[in-house]
């Protein structure tokens, strides 16, 4: 069975918890003791009905304030697929937590209320999903029961959203009219929307094609750890352990090691289960080469005729994640990219992007918490990277404050600085 990771963004008001609750409930993934605990708590809090948000709002502070602060992960399965839900907060104050949950998602669901249509928050969520290159975006037009399942209203929302989305880079955009509360088009297609020709949300989640979303073209193998057993049985064994970050590697493939530029050939791809015929992302394997090269952690194996960009000058979009301090030109950070750790200097902040309007503000000199902008970085060592839009693994990095050790920014590489 395949694994699909999806992120949901929205607030309780949009019916996010009801939707997740329904998916879990109808796939029999809410357990009786969880449900009765939530029922008891809802009653104690004086709520009229069972509040399914209490299932995922796992922290005391979240339950007290009635909001989602941090990502919660939930799990369910159908006979067709296993699912990991990253339930992310919708509020702008917690954008960084939405970014965390969205970074590994195959698909994002942006929920909106059919009565309210496309609001600022939905635009922001769609923008973040596109910035993080989540390959599939589902716009769940919820509460259709409150607009009498009106086809016209649905089409109006679709049209407005498409107008906005045209400015974004969204691969696959799907609109589904539904009512999480009544169950319309969540698990099964609803008789209340005979005009809707698409599938139910769950059917879409079960069948959306995701295996080709990963980069299967550009072979990239960041070396994580060198395995040298020094045992009698494996005396001369020298294996490069790592996770394939792109493309497909096979025994016999010619490879080049970066940064040295030395070439060799894949002798074997190993695992404890035996040698493998091939390895593709995101498999964690061990690669053995025919020649003895000086290769270590932070180096990268790739094909001689398909190499990443090697550069110390990088343009990137960054999301500033820190409450303390702001990102400003001249600042220095520790940078992690694939298995490589180096330092980076912010040479320039080219613009700050208004996440609600997509307006580029070039006058602003800093990025504050949750703000997104375009920067130019200079690193102390070269990075081996691809554009983020081509490969999320080799195109992403994080910045770390060298004093506090906190992760302060998420970066998505646009390319080499010109």
């Amino acid at each position: 069975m395949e694994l699909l990771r999806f992120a949901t963004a929205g607030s309780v008001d949009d019916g996010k918890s009801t939707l997740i609750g329904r998916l879990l409930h109808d796939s029999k993934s809410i357990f009786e003791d969880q449900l009765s605990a939530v029922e008891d708590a809802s009653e104690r809090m004086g709520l009229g009905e069972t509040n399914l948000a209490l299932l995922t709002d796992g922290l005391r502070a979240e339950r007290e304030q009635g909001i989602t602060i941090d990502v919660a992960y939930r799990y369910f399965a159908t006979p067709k697929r296993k699912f990991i839900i990253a339930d992310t907060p919708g509020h702008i104050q917690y954008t960084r937590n939405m970014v965390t949950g969205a970074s590994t998602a195959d698909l994002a669901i942006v929920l909106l209320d059919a009565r309210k249509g496309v609001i600022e928050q939905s635009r922001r969520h769609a923008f973040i999903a596109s910035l993080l290159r989540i390959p599939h975006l589902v716009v769940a037009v919820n509460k259709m029961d409150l607009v009498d399942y009106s086809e016209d209203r649905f089409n109006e929302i679709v049209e407005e959203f498409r107008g906005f989305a045209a400015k974004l880079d969204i691969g696959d955009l799907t609109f589904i009219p539904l009512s999480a509360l009544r169950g319309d088009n969540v698990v099964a297609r609803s008789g209340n929307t005979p005009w809707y020709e698409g599938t139910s949300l769950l059917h879409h989640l079960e069948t959306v094609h995701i295996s080709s979303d990963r980069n299967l073209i550009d072979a990239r193998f960041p070396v994580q750890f060198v395995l040298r057993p020094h045992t009698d049985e494996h005396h001369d064994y020298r294996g490069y352990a790592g996770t394939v970050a792109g493309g497909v590697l096979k025994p016999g493939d010619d490879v080049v090691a970066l940064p040295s530029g030395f070439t060799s050939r894949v002798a074997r791809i190993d695992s404890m289960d035996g040698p493998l015929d091939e390895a593709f992302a995101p498999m964690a394997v061990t690669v053995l080469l025919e020649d003895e090269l000086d290769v270590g952690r932070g180096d990268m194996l790739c094909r001689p005729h398909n190499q990443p960009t090697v550069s110390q000058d990088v343009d990137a979009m960054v999301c500033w994640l820190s409450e303390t301090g702001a990102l400003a030109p001249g600042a220095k950070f520790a940078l992690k990219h694939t298995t490589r750790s180096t330092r980076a200097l912010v040479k320039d902040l080219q613009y700050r992007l208004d996440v609600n309007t997509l307006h580029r503000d070039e006058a602003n000199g800093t990025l504050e918490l949750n703000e997104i902008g375009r920067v130019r970085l200079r690193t102390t060592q070269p990075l081996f990277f691809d554009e983020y839009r081509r490969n999320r693994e080799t195109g992403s990095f994080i910045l770390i404050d060298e004093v506090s050790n906190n992760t302060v920014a998420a970066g998505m590489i646009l390319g080499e600085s010109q």
Partner: protein
Amino acid sequence: MNYELEHLLALEAESIHVMREVAAEFERPVLLFSGGKDSIVMLHLAIKAFWPARSPFPLMHIDTGHNFDEVYEYRDRVVAEHGLRLVVASVQESIDAGRVVEQTGPRASRNQLQTTTLLDAIEHHGFDAAFGGARRDEERARAKERFYSFRDDFGQWDPKNQRPELWSLYNGRHHRGEHIRVFPLSNWTELDIWQYIEAENIDVPSIYYAHERDVFARDGMWLAVTRFVTVADDEEVERRKVRFRTVGDASCTGAVESDASDVSAVIAEVASTRITERGATRADDRASEAAMEDRKREGYF
């Protein structure tokens, strides 16, 4: 060519990636091993991740002295089989040293005392990363955990102020005295664990499978009659066919009635159960609405 990755392989790859990152970036990592199924799967992954080299992580068992005999026996066997280094940190020693005070009464448990023993041992041995087998699907506070969970000088978790964790880029940087808890099984469910145990043919302690045992009902659970619990006058001992879904202290871990005597029967049972494993079997989680969150803040597993 089909490049779909089966879900167990995807989960395995994610866990192995995390373990290799820890091996590469930390000086003194340790794997917390309880003899429960999750830590057994975690150990199996730690061996796979570095094969044919030896797993670089020593094991540490926080020993309450109240575990099931079958679990001690299993632990010693596995350690000998793989030639692993085992550190035992004993709650009894923490009690003897006056670091913690033993609870009294018929419901006394050493569950909470473990936190002090764990933090003392991490400090004593200078461990900078400690692998735990906790899974996000177990409990709602655990659903909020990162793979790398930062702990301050006091071993505390601050759930409202967690480091953002993006892609597969893990930030393990910390100052001296601080450490990182690492949860490589974050995305596994109870069912995944059992399917993996079957697929990889992993041995687990016999108490995970159905067996006849003397038990008595307490707080809606079947507690085993052992030297660690006192059966009250109004509690009736019965012989029943049970198995354990989780393995903690004998004093607070309940058994469930079951006929599942092998791994495929356990998988069928887990797939159809309507009660969570911790809800069914762990008195330690029932103390309050936020029992796990409160313990985790203090430095619990």
